[in-house]
Protein backbone atom coordinates (compact mmCIF):
# COMPACT_ATOMS: atom_id res chain seq x y z
CA UNK A 1 0.00 0.00 0.00
CA UNK A 2 2.65 2.51 1.05
CA UNK A 3 4.80 1.41 -1.84
CA UNK A 4 1.95 2.12 -4.25
CA UNK A 5 1.37 5.48 -2.61
CA UNK A 6 5.05 6.45 -2.69
CA UNK A 7 5.14 5.47 -6.33
CA UNK A 8 2.19 7.73 -7.09
CA UNK A 9 3.72 10.68 -5.24
CA UNK A 10 6.99 10.18 -7.09
CA UNK A 11 5.15 10.17 -10.40
CA UNK A 12 3.23 13.26 -9.43
CA UNK A 13 6.44 15.09 -8.58
CA UNK A 14 8.02 13.91 -11.83
CA UNK A 15 4.97 14.90 -13.92
CA UNK A 16 4.08 18.25 -12.46
CA UNK A 17 6.63 19.60 -10.01
CA UNK A 18 9.98 18.90 -11.62
CA UNK A 19 11.08 21.58 -14.05
CA UNK A 20 7.78 23.33 -13.34
CA UNK A 21 5.97 20.99 -15.70
CA UNK A 22 2.64 22.07 -14.19
CA UNK A 23 3.03 25.11 -16.39
CA UNK A 24 2.10 22.99 -19.42
CA UNK A 25 -1.25 22.42 -17.74
CA UNK A 26 -1.94 25.97 -16.52
CA UNK A 27 -0.81 27.59 -19.76
CA UNK A 28 -2.87 25.02 -21.62
CA UNK A 29 -6.01 25.87 -19.65
CA UNK A 30 -5.56 29.53 -20.50
CA UNK A 31 -5.13 28.81 -24.23
CA UNK A 32 -8.13 26.47 -24.23
CA UNK A 33 -10.33 29.09 -22.59
CA UNK A 34 -9.06 31.79 -24.94
CA UNK A 35 -9.76 29.75 -28.06
CA UNK A 36 -13.19 28.83 -26.72
CA UNK A 37 -14.13 32.41 -25.82
CA UNK A 38 -12.85 33.94 -29.06
CA UNK A 39 -14.50 31.26 -31.22
CA UNK A 40 -17.77 31.58 -29.34
CA UNK A 41 -17.82 35.33 -29.92
CA UNK A 42 -17.14 34.89 -33.62
CA UNK A 43 -19.69 32.08 -33.78
CA UNK A 44 -22.31 34.30 -32.19
CA UNK A 45 -21.76 37.09 -34.70
CA UNK A 46 -21.86 34.70 -37.67
CA UNK A 47 -24.74 32.73 -36.20
CA UNK A 48 -26.98 35.74 -35.57
CA UNK A 49 -26.34 37.17 -39.04
CA UNK A 50 -26.93 33.86 -40.80
CA UNK A 51 -30.08 33.20 -38.76
CA UNK A 52 -31.49 36.63 -39.64
CA UNK A 53 -30.77 36.13 -43.35
CA UNK A 54 -32.39 32.69 -43.35
CA UNK A 55 -35.50 33.66 -41.38
CA UNK A 56 -36.09 36.91 -43.26
CA UNK A 57 -35.77 35.02 -46.54
CA UNK A 58 -38.35 32.49 -45.34
CA UNK A 59 -40.68 35.07 -43.80
CA UNK A 60 -40.79 37.46 -46.71
CA UNK A 61 -41.90 34.64 -48.97
CA UNK A 62 -40.89 33.81 -52.51
CA UNK A 63 -43.19 36.03 -54.50
CA UNK A 64 -42.38 39.16 -52.51
CA UNK A 65 -38.66 38.87 -53.22
CA UNK A 66 -38.34 41.21 -56.14
CA UNK A 67 -36.09 44.14 -56.88
CA UNK A 68 -32.51 44.55 -55.80
CA UNK A 69 -33.08 43.84 -52.11
CA UNK A 70 -34.98 40.68 -53.01
CA UNK A 71 -32.10 39.59 -55.21
CA UNK A 72 -29.61 40.37 -52.44
CA UNK A 73 -31.57 38.36 -49.88
CA UNK A 74 -31.70 35.39 -52.25
CA UNK A 75 -27.96 35.48 -52.89
CA UNK A 76 -27.19 35.83 -49.19
CA UNK A 77 -29.59 33.00 -48.38
CA UNK A 78 -27.91 30.74 -50.95
CA UNK A 79 -24.48 31.52 -49.51
CA UNK A 80 -25.73 30.80 -46.00
CA UNK A 81 -27.27 27.48 -47.07
CA UNK A 82 -24.01 26.34 -48.64
CA UNK A 83 -22.08 27.44 -45.56
CA UNK A 84 -24.39 25.51 -43.22
CA UNK A 85 -24.36 22.38 -45.39
CA UNK A 86 -20.60 22.27 -45.78
CA UNK A 87 -19.70 23.08 -42.19
CA UNK A 88 -22.20 20.71 -40.63
CA UNK A 89 -21.47 17.98 -43.17
CA UNK A 90 -17.71 17.69 -42.61
CA UNK A 91 -15.72 16.74 -39.50
CA UNK A 92 -14.30 19.51 -37.34
CA UNK A 93 -10.88 17.89 -37.48
CA UNK A 94 -10.83 18.04 -41.29
CA UNK A 95 -11.95 21.70 -41.23
CA UNK A 96 -9.15 22.53 -38.81
CA UNK A 97 -6.54 20.81 -40.97
CA UNK A 98 -7.81 22.48 -44.15
CA UNK A 99 -7.52 25.83 -42.43
CA UNK A 100 -4.01 25.01 -41.17
CA UNK A 101 -2.47 23.24 -44.16
CA UNK A 102 -4.35 24.90 -47.04
CA UNK A 103 -6.10 28.20 -46.41
CA UNK A 104 -3.72 29.65 -43.85
CA UNK A 105 -0.69 27.54 -44.80
CA UNK A 106 1.47 30.65 -44.84
CA UNK A 107 0.51 31.69 -41.32
CA UNK A 108 2.44 30.57 -38.28
CA UNK A 109 -0.15 31.89 -35.87
CA UNK A 110 -1.75 28.69 -34.60
CA UNK A 111 -4.08 30.52 -32.29
CA UNK A 112 -5.51 32.40 -35.27
CA UNK A 113 -5.99 29.17 -37.21
CA UNK A 114 -7.78 27.51 -34.30
CA UNK A 115 -9.92 30.54 -33.51
CA UNK A 116 -11.03 31.01 -37.14
CA UNK A 117 -11.77 27.31 -37.65
CA UNK A 118 -13.78 26.96 -34.49
CA UNK A 119 -15.49 30.31 -34.92
CA UNK A 120 -16.65 29.42 -38.42
CA UNK A 121 -17.66 25.95 -37.25
CA UNK A 122 -19.65 27.02 -34.20
CA UNK A 123 -21.24 29.82 -36.26
CA UNK A 124 -23.08 27.16 -38.25
CA UNK A 125 -24.46 25.48 -35.14
CA UNK A 126 -25.29 28.76 -33.42
CA UNK A 127 -27.11 29.89 -36.57
CA UNK A 128 -29.48 26.95 -36.26
CA UNK A 129 -29.93 27.59 -32.54
CA UNK A 130 -30.71 31.26 -33.21
CA UNK A 131 -33.05 30.34 -36.04
CA UNK A 132 -35.09 28.11 -33.79
CA UNK A 133 -35.07 30.93 -31.24
CA UNK A 134 -36.39 33.45 -33.74
CA UNK A 135 -39.04 31.03 -34.97
CA UNK A 136 -40.17 30.37 -31.40
CA UNK A 137 -41.34 33.99 -31.13
CA UNK A 138 -45.04 34.43 -31.88
CA UNK A 139 -45.54 36.12 -35.24
CA UNK A 140 -47.84 38.61 -33.56
CA UNK A 141 -44.71 40.23 -32.11
CA UNK A 142 -43.37 41.09 -35.56
CA UNK A 143 -46.81 42.28 -36.64
CA UNK A 144 -47.18 44.47 -33.57
CA UNK A 145 -43.77 46.03 -34.18
CA UNK A 146 -44.46 46.61 -37.86
CA UNK A 147 -47.94 48.00 -37.20
CA UNK A 148 -46.33 50.63 -34.96
CA UNK A 149 -44.35 51.81 -37.96
CA UNK A 150 -41.05 50.20 -36.96
CA UNK A 151 -39.04 48.80 -39.86
CA UNK A 152 -38.14 45.11 -40.23
CA UNK A 153 -34.58 45.60 -38.95
CA UNK A 154 -35.65 47.72 -35.97
CA UNK A 155 -38.34 45.23 -35.02
CA UNK A 156 -35.82 42.41 -35.25
CA UNK A 157 -33.32 44.28 -33.12
CA UNK A 158 -35.62 45.65 -30.43
CA UNK A 159 -38.40 43.08 -30.21
CA UNK A 160 -37.56 39.72 -31.76
CA UNK A 161 -33.85 39.19 -31.03
CA UNK A 162 -33.95 40.06 -27.30
CA UNK A 163 -36.68 37.47 -26.78
CA UNK A 164 -35.09 34.92 -29.11
CA UNK A 165 -31.70 35.12 -27.42
CA UNK A 166 -33.32 34.77 -24.02
CA UNK A 167 -35.13 31.65 -25.21
CA UNK A 168 -31.97 30.00 -26.51
CA UNK A 169 -29.53 31.00 -23.76
CA UNK A 170 -29.42 27.45 -22.32
CA UNK A 171 -28.76 26.02 -25.79
CA UNK A 172 -25.97 28.57 -26.30
CA UNK A 173 -24.30 27.56 -23.04
CA UNK A 174 -24.53 23.98 -24.25
CA UNK A 175 -22.87 24.95 -27.51
CA UNK A 176 -20.09 26.61 -25.54
CA UNK A 177 -19.52 23.41 -23.55
CA UNK A 178 -19.31 21.40 -26.78
CA UNK A 179 -16.92 23.95 -28.22
CA UNK A 180 -14.69 23.82 -25.15
CA UNK A 181 -14.34 20.06 -25.40
CA UNK A 182 -13.83 20.10 -29.16
CA UNK A 183 -10.87 22.49 -28.92
CA UNK A 184 -8.92 19.51 -27.54
CA UNK A 185 -8.15 18.55 -31.14
CA UNK A 186 -6.10 21.73 -31.60
CA UNK A 187 -3.08 19.73 -30.48
CA UNK A 188 -2.96 18.23 -33.97
CA UNK A 189 -1.90 21.59 -35.40
CA UNK A 190 0.56 22.07 -32.55
CA UNK A 191 -1.38 24.61 -30.51
CA UNK A 192 -0.39 24.24 -26.86
CA UNK A 193 -3.82 23.95 -25.33
CA UNK A 194 -4.82 21.85 -22.33
CA UNK A 195 -4.90 18.40 -23.96
CA UNK A 196 -1.57 18.94 -25.67
CA UNK A 197 -0.12 20.18 -22.37
CA UNK A 198 -0.89 16.83 -20.79
CA UNK A 199 0.43 15.05 -23.86
CA UNK A 200 3.76 16.89 -23.76
CA UNK A 201 4.23 15.85 -20.13
CA UNK A 202 3.48 12.24 -21.07
CA UNK A 203 6.05 12.41 -23.82
CA UNK A 204 8.73 13.59 -21.44
CA UNK A 205 7.99 11.49 -18.35
CA UNK A 206 6.53 8.39 -20.05
CA UNK A 207 3.72 8.46 -17.49
CA UNK A 208 0.35 8.51 -19.24
CA UNK A 209 -2.05 8.08 -16.38
CA UNK A 210 -1.59 11.13 -14.17
CA UNK A 211 -1.34 13.82 -16.87
CA UNK A 212 -4.41 12.48 -18.67
CA UNK A 213 -6.43 12.17 -15.48
CA UNK A 214 -5.53 15.70 -14.48
CA UNK A 215 -6.44 17.01 -17.92
CA UNK A 216 -9.75 15.17 -17.84
CA UNK A 217 -10.49 16.46 -14.33
CA UNK A 218 -9.88 20.05 -15.43
CA UNK A 219 -12.22 19.75 -18.44
CA UNK A 220 -14.80 18.19 -16.18
CA UNK A 221 -14.48 20.97 -13.61
CA UNK A 222 -14.92 23.68 -16.24
CA UNK A 223 -17.90 21.93 -17.81
CA UNK A 224 -19.52 21.40 -14.42
CA UNK A 225 -19.01 25.06 -13.64
CA UNK A 226 -20.78 26.11 -16.84
CA UNK A 227 -23.53 23.55 -16.29
CA UNK A 228 -24.08 25.08 -12.89
CA UNK A 229 -24.23 28.56 -14.45
CA UNK A 230 -26.73 27.24 -16.98
CA UNK A 231 -28.90 25.87 -14.15
CA UNK A 232 -28.90 29.29 -12.50
CA UNK A 233 -29.74 30.94 -15.81
CA UNK A 234 -32.62 28.61 -16.51
CA UNK A 235 -34.09 29.24 -13.08
CA UNK A 236 -33.77 33.01 -13.51
CA UNK A 237 -35.42 32.80 -16.93
CA UNK A 238 -38.30 30.72 -15.61
CA UNK A 239 -38.88 33.29 -12.88
CA UNK A 240 -38.82 36.17 -15.32
CA UNK A 241 -41.35 34.37 -17.52
CA UNK A 242 -43.86 34.41 -14.71
CA UNK A 243 -43.27 38.08 -14.01
Amino acid at each position, binding site marked *: MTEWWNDLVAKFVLDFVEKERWRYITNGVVVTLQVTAASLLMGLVIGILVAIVRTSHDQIGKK*NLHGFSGFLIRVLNAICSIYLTVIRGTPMMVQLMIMYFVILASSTNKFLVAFLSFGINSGAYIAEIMRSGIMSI*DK*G*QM*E*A*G*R*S*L*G*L*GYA*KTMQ*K*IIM*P*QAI*KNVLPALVNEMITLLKETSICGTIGLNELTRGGDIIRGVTYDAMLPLLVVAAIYLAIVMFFTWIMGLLERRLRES*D*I*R
Partner: protein
Amino acid sequence: MISVRNLCKDFGAHKVLRGINYEIGQGEKIVIIGPSGSGKSTFLRCLNLLETPTSGQIFFEGTEITGKGVDINKIRQQMGMVFQHFNLFPHLSIMDNLILAPVELKLMTKEEAKEEALRLLDIVGLREKADSYPGQLSGGQKQRIAIVRSLALKPKMMLFDEPTSALDPEMVGEVLEVMKNLAEDGMTMAVVTHEMGFAKEVGTKVLFMDEGVILEEGTPEEIFGDPKQDRTKEFLSKVLI
Protein backbone atom coordinates in the same frame (compact mmCIF):
# COMPACT_ATOMS: atom_id res chain seq x y z
CA MET B 1 -59.80 59.30 -45.05
CA ILE B 2 -59.36 55.82 -46.45
CA SER B 3 -60.63 54.62 -49.77
CA VAL B 4 -60.53 51.02 -50.94
CA ARG B 5 -60.97 50.12 -54.62
CA ASN B 6 -61.54 46.63 -55.88
CA LEU B 7 -59.35 45.07 -53.22
CA CYS B 8 -58.55 41.38 -53.77
CA LYS B 9 -56.41 39.05 -51.73
CA ASP B 10 -55.56 35.43 -52.53
CA PHE B 11 -53.73 32.97 -50.33
CA GLY B 12 -52.55 30.58 -53.01
CA ALA B 13 -55.66 29.34 -54.76
CA HIS B 14 -57.89 30.54 -51.95
CA LYS B 15 -59.60 33.84 -52.88
CA VAL B 16 -60.14 35.41 -49.47
CA LEU B 17 -61.07 38.95 -50.56
CA ARG B 18 -62.96 39.18 -53.85
CA GLY B 19 -63.29 42.82 -54.75
CA ILE B 20 -63.91 45.17 -51.85
CA ASN B 21 -64.89 48.78 -52.47
CA TYR B 22 -65.34 51.09 -49.54
CA GLU B 23 -64.73 54.61 -48.28
CA ILE B 24 -64.17 55.45 -44.64
CA GLY B 25 -64.62 59.10 -43.85
CA GLN B 26 -62.99 61.20 -41.16
CA GLY B 27 -64.46 60.39 -37.73
CA GLU B 28 -66.48 57.40 -38.89
CA LYS B 29 -66.71 54.28 -36.77
CA ILE B 30 -67.01 51.28 -39.04
CA VAL B 31 -68.00 47.98 -37.47
CA ILE B 32 -67.26 44.88 -39.52
CA ILE B 33 -69.23 41.73 -38.79
CA GLY B 34 -69.56 38.41 -40.54
CA PRO B 35 -69.04 34.67 -40.17
CA SER B 36 -65.67 33.14 -39.37
CA GLY B 37 -63.41 32.91 -42.41
CA SER B 38 -65.30 35.59 -44.35
CA GLY B 39 -62.14 37.72 -44.61
CA LYS B 40 -62.74 40.35 -41.91
CA SER B 41 -59.25 40.16 -40.44
CA THR B 42 -57.66 39.97 -43.87
CA PHE B 43 -59.53 43.11 -44.94
CA LEU B 44 -58.38 44.99 -41.84
CA ARG B 45 -54.82 43.77 -42.22
CA CYS B 46 -54.75 44.91 -45.84
CA LEU B 47 -55.60 48.45 -44.73
CA ASN B 48 -52.21 48.87 -43.06
CA LEU B 49 -50.53 46.44 -45.45
CA LEU B 50 -49.78 43.75 -42.89
CA GLU B 51 -51.10 41.67 -45.77
CA THR B 52 -50.07 42.66 -49.28
CA PRO B 53 -53.15 42.91 -51.50
CA THR B 54 -53.11 40.72 -54.61
CA SER B 55 -54.77 43.48 -56.60
CA GLY B 56 -56.72 46.68 -56.07
CA GLN B 57 -55.89 50.04 -54.58
CA ILE B 58 -55.97 51.60 -51.13
CA PHE B 59 -55.75 55.37 -50.66
CA PHE B 60 -54.98 56.90 -47.29
CA GLU B 61 -55.58 60.65 -47.17
CA GLY B 62 -55.20 60.83 -50.92
CA THR B 63 -51.95 58.84 -51.11
CA GLU B 64 -52.09 55.49 -52.81
CA ILE B 65 -50.42 53.28 -50.22
CA THR B 66 -50.56 50.25 -52.50
CA GLY B 67 -48.46 52.13 -55.04
CA LYS B 68 -44.70 52.02 -55.50
CA GLY B 69 -42.30 54.04 -53.39
CA VAL B 70 -44.57 54.80 -50.44
CA ASP B 71 -42.95 54.70 -47.02
CA ILE B 72 -45.32 52.21 -45.45
CA ASN B 73 -43.74 52.69 -42.02
CA LYS B 74 -44.78 56.35 -42.09
CA ILE B 75 -48.33 55.36 -43.02
CA ARG B 76 -48.53 52.74 -40.29
CA GLN B 77 -47.59 55.30 -37.65
CA GLN B 78 -50.83 57.06 -38.50
CA MET B 79 -52.92 53.88 -38.39
CA GLY B 80 -52.88 52.18 -35.01
CA MET B 81 -53.76 48.49 -34.83
CA VAL B 82 -55.08 46.50 -31.90
CA PHE B 83 -54.94 42.71 -32.06
CA GLN B 84 -57.07 39.98 -30.58
CA HIS B 85 -54.12 38.63 -28.61
CA PHE B 86 -52.77 42.04 -27.50
CA ASN B 87 -49.22 41.34 -28.73
CA LEU B 88 -47.58 43.36 -26.00
CA PHE B 89 -43.79 42.99 -25.88
CA PRO B 90 -43.29 40.62 -22.92
CA HIS B 91 -39.62 41.49 -22.40
CA LEU B 92 -40.35 45.18 -21.90
CA SER B 93 -42.05 46.98 -19.02
CA ILE B 94 -45.38 48.64 -19.71
CA MET B 95 -43.63 52.02 -19.88
CA ASP B 96 -41.11 50.67 -22.39
CA ASN B 97 -43.90 49.10 -24.44
CA LEU B 98 -45.46 52.55 -24.73
CA ILE B 99 -42.36 54.59 -25.50
CA LEU B 100 -40.52 52.15 -27.78
CA ALA B 101 -42.04 53.26 -31.07
CA PRO B 102 -42.23 57.04 -30.48
CA VAL B 103 -38.60 57.09 -29.32
CA GLU B 104 -37.22 54.71 -31.95
CA LEU B 105 -39.04 56.62 -34.68
CA LYS B 106 -37.59 59.83 -33.27
CA LEU B 107 -41.02 61.42 -32.93
CA MET B 108 -40.37 62.36 -29.32
CA THR B 109 -37.48 62.48 -26.88
CA LYS B 110 -37.51 59.82 -24.19
CA GLU B 111 -38.71 62.37 -21.62
CA GLU B 112 -41.56 63.58 -23.80
CA ALA B 113 -42.57 60.02 -24.60
CA LYS B 114 -42.62 59.09 -20.92
CA GLU B 115 -44.74 62.09 -20.06
CA GLU B 116 -47.16 61.23 -22.85
CA ALA B 117 -47.19 57.58 -21.75
CA LEU B 118 -48.13 58.54 -18.19
CA ARG B 119 -50.91 60.75 -19.51
CA LEU B 120 -52.25 57.86 -21.58
CA LEU B 121 -51.92 55.42 -18.67
CA ASP B 122 -53.97 57.83 -16.56
CA ILE B 123 -56.72 57.81 -19.16
CA VAL B 124 -57.06 54.03 -18.97
CA GLY B 125 -56.49 54.02 -15.21
CA LEU B 126 -53.29 51.99 -15.30
CA ARG B 127 -50.65 54.51 -14.23
CA GLU B 128 -49.54 52.33 -11.33
CA LYS B 129 -48.68 49.54 -13.80
CA ALA B 130 -46.00 51.58 -15.60
CA ASP B 131 -43.17 49.49 -14.18
CA SER B 132 -44.96 46.14 -14.37
CA TYR B 133 -44.42 43.62 -17.14
CA PRO B 134 -47.15 42.36 -19.48
CA GLY B 135 -47.11 38.94 -17.81
CA GLN B 136 -48.29 40.51 -14.57
CA LEU B 137 -51.42 42.03 -16.11
CA SER B 138 -54.92 40.63 -16.66
CA GLY B 139 -56.22 40.28 -20.21
CA GLY B 140 -58.35 43.39 -19.96
CA GLN B 141 -55.43 45.40 -18.64
CA LYS B 142 -53.20 44.09 -21.43
CA GLN B 143 -55.66 45.13 -24.10
CA ARG B 144 -56.07 48.60 -22.61
CA ILE B 145 -52.27 48.94 -22.67
CA ALA B 146 -52.19 47.72 -26.28
CA ILE B 147 -54.68 50.43 -27.21
CA VAL B 148 -52.70 53.22 -25.60
CA ARG B 149 -49.48 51.83 -27.07
CA SER B 150 -50.96 52.61 -30.49
CA LEU B 151 -52.29 55.95 -29.29
CA ALA B 152 -48.81 57.00 -28.20
CA LEU B 153 -48.06 57.62 -31.89
CA LYS B 154 -51.07 59.95 -32.15
CA PRO B 155 -52.59 58.03 -35.06
CA LYS B 156 -55.33 59.44 -37.27
CA MET B 157 -57.14 56.15 -37.41
CA MET B 158 -57.40 52.96 -35.35
CA LEU B 159 -57.97 49.40 -36.53
CA PHE B 160 -59.30 46.84 -34.05
CA ASP B 161 -59.36 43.12 -34.85
CA GLU B 162 -61.66 41.39 -32.37
CA PRO B 163 -60.17 43.29 -29.43
CA THR B 164 -62.37 41.56 -26.84
CA SER B 165 -62.60 38.03 -28.22
CA ALA B 166 -59.71 36.67 -26.15
CA LEU B 167 -60.97 38.20 -22.91
CA ASP B 168 -62.86 36.68 -20.01
CA PRO B 169 -66.42 38.04 -20.07
CA GLU B 170 -65.95 40.21 -16.99
CA MET B 171 -63.10 42.08 -18.71
CA VAL B 172 -64.86 42.88 -21.96
CA GLY B 173 -66.58 45.94 -20.52
CA GLU B 174 -63.45 47.78 -19.44
CA VAL B 175 -61.94 47.49 -22.92
CA LEU B 176 -65.14 48.52 -24.72
CA GLU B 177 -65.32 51.50 -22.36
CA VAL B 178 -61.90 52.70 -23.53
CA MET B 179 -62.96 52.24 -27.14
CA LYS B 180 -66.19 54.17 -26.59
CA ASN B 181 -64.28 57.07 -25.08
CA LEU B 182 -61.92 57.02 -28.02
CA ALA B 183 -64.91 57.10 -30.37
CA GLU B 184 -66.41 60.06 -28.52
CA ASP B 185 -63.12 61.93 -28.90
CA GLY B 186 -63.66 61.70 -32.65
CA MET B 187 -61.19 58.95 -33.59
CA THR B 188 -61.76 57.30 -36.95
CA MET B 189 -62.16 53.60 -36.23
CA ALA B 190 -62.58 50.30 -38.04
CA VAL B 191 -63.58 47.53 -35.67
CA VAL B 192 -64.04 43.82 -36.32
CA THR B 193 -66.12 42.52 -33.44
CA HIS B 194 -68.81 40.13 -32.31
CA GLU B 195 -70.02 42.65 -29.70
CA MET B 196 -73.31 43.65 -31.30
CA GLY B 197 -74.13 45.98 -28.42
CA PHE B 198 -71.00 47.96 -29.16
CA ALA B 199 -71.80 47.96 -32.87
CA LYS B 200 -75.24 49.44 -32.23
CA GLU B 201 -74.08 52.00 -29.75
CA VAL B 202 -70.87 53.25 -31.35
CA GLY B 203 -70.95 52.27 -35.01
CA THR B 204 -71.77 54.84 -37.65
CA LYS B 205 -71.81 52.09 -40.28
CA VAL B 206 -71.99 48.34 -40.06
CA LEU B 207 -70.50 46.16 -42.80
CA PHE B 208 -71.59 42.57 -43.16
CA MET B 209 -68.87 40.55 -44.86
CA ASP B 210 -69.43 37.14 -46.39
CA GLU B 211 -67.08 35.07 -48.54
CA GLY B 212 -64.70 37.90 -49.27
CA VAL B 213 -67.15 40.64 -50.20
CA ILE B 214 -69.11 43.31 -48.36
CA LEU B 215 -72.52 41.74 -48.80
CA GLU B 216 -74.46 44.46 -47.05
CA GLU B 217 -73.76 47.80 -45.42
CA GLY B 218 -75.78 50.36 -43.60
CA THR B 219 -76.37 52.15 -40.35
CA PRO B 220 -76.68 49.93 -37.27
CA GLU B 221 -80.47 50.52 -37.36
CA GLU B 222 -80.67 49.33 -40.96
CA ILE B 223 -78.47 46.26 -40.53
CA PHE B 224 -79.84 45.11 -37.20
CA GLY B 225 -83.42 46.34 -37.65
CA ASP B 226 -84.08 45.53 -41.26
CA PRO B 227 -81.40 43.42 -42.94
CA LYS B 228 -81.96 42.96 -46.68
CA GLN B 229 -79.87 39.88 -47.44
CA ASP B 230 -80.81 36.38 -46.35
CA ARG B 231 -77.21 35.66 -45.34
CA THR B 232 -77.23 38.70 -43.07
CA LYS B 233 -80.51 37.66 -41.48
CA GLU B 234 -79.22 34.15 -40.97
CA PHE B 235 -75.96 35.42 -39.41
CA LEU B 236 -77.72 37.89 -37.12
CA SER B 237 -80.24 35.33 -35.97
CA LYS B 238 -77.32 33.18 -34.81
CA VAL B 239 -75.43 35.90 -32.96
CA LEU B 240 -78.37 37.86 -31.54
CA ILE B 241 -79.93 35.24 -29.36
